[in-house]
């Protein structure tokens, strides 16, 4: 097994978790009310914890004393391979909830499959992560329903969030060359196969929220190849500031 491929595979999954975590952490002290602030921060911490597990594993595969921190703080924008949906800005509360609902639903389906991976480490991390994700999806999906059935304003905002973020959803199920190799080696997950189930879950919640699933929208992609939207650079400048300004600073 070419470990270079496994490294890239693990790194990409770690990037998805890390960038999602960083986005969610931006809600700390800014959420609509105290309890929600704590909820979002807890979910953010779950994702940081997961990112740490994946990136530590990736670092060990890379060798040369690479650490998870090296991977998180010393790579440039083009070297990050997270999917574009993860880096999309928090926007208003509805924007964040829709982004999270799409991601949580994908993560749930993805992790369930990754538990069956031939790779013991990936399987173990997924087993731990799936419990958290089951809670995350409960949190975000109930908010989508609440906002959809709330006021005219909350309904309009959640529908607009869906329409704006829909273009990033197809990328979740894309398989690049490396993904296909990983799948053939029974290490990775066949993301394409997750789409029908994802559609069913999304559709069920949308029905309950009385919002519409967009049809035939333009879809965009590029994250796995390091081609990002303009938002990732700003996120990284914030996240990496300390290590860039004071290299190798320690707690």
């Amino acid at each position: 097994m070419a470990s270079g491929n496994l490294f890239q595979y693990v790194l990409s999954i770690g990037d998805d978790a890390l960038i999602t975590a960083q986005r969610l952490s931006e809600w700390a002290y800014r959420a609509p009310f105290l309890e929600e602030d704590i909820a979002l921060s807890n979910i953010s911490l779950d994702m940081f914890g997961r990112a740490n597990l994946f990136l530590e594993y990736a670092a060990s595969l890379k060798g040369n004393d690479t650490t998870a921190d090296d991977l998180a703080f010393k790579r440039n924008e083009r070297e990050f391979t997270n999917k574009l949906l993860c880096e999309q800005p928090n926007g208003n509360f509805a924007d964040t909830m829709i982004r999270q609902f799409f991601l949580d639903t994908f993560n749930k389906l993805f992790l369930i499959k990754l538990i069956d991976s031939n790779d013991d480490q990936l399987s173990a991390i997924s087993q731990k992560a799936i419990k958290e994700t089951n809670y995350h999806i409960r949190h975000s999906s109930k908010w989508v329903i609440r906002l959809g059935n709330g006021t005219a304003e909350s309904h309009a905002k959640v529908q607009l969030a869906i329409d704006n973020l829909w273009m990033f959803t197809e990328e979740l199920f894309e398989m690049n060359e490396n993904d296909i190799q990983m799948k053939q080696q029974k290490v990775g997950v066949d993301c394409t196969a997750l789409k029908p189930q994802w559609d069913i879950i999304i559709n069920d919640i949308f029905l309950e929220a009385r919002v519409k699933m967009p049809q035939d929208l333009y879809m965009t992609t590029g994250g796995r190849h390091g081609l990002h939207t303009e938002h990732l650079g700003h996120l990284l400048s914030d996240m990496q500031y300390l290590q860039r300004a004071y290299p190798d600073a320690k707690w």
Partner: protein
Amino acid sequence: MSKATLQVWEVFIQPKTGAHFQHMGSVHAADKEMALQNARELYTRRQEGTCIWVVRSENIVSSKPEDNDSFFDPADDKIYRYPTFFKVSKKVKDL
């Protein structure tokens, strides 16, 4: 979301199976599910419980401080109401 659309809920946690539920505090929430989730976020971060109850605060009937004399003081001189005359086996942990 303004506080006006949120209600206060009281949170009770059962520390372990079979134990009494204990009042932990309160949370703000707009509905049952949110109350349960917020209770989970605030009060079970360190695996404190096995079960959570949430109850709308307005559904709790409380005595008033001015009732204290008539409610509680009469027990003052009735020592026979205390179960201190029974020997409790050391094996009993959760009485």
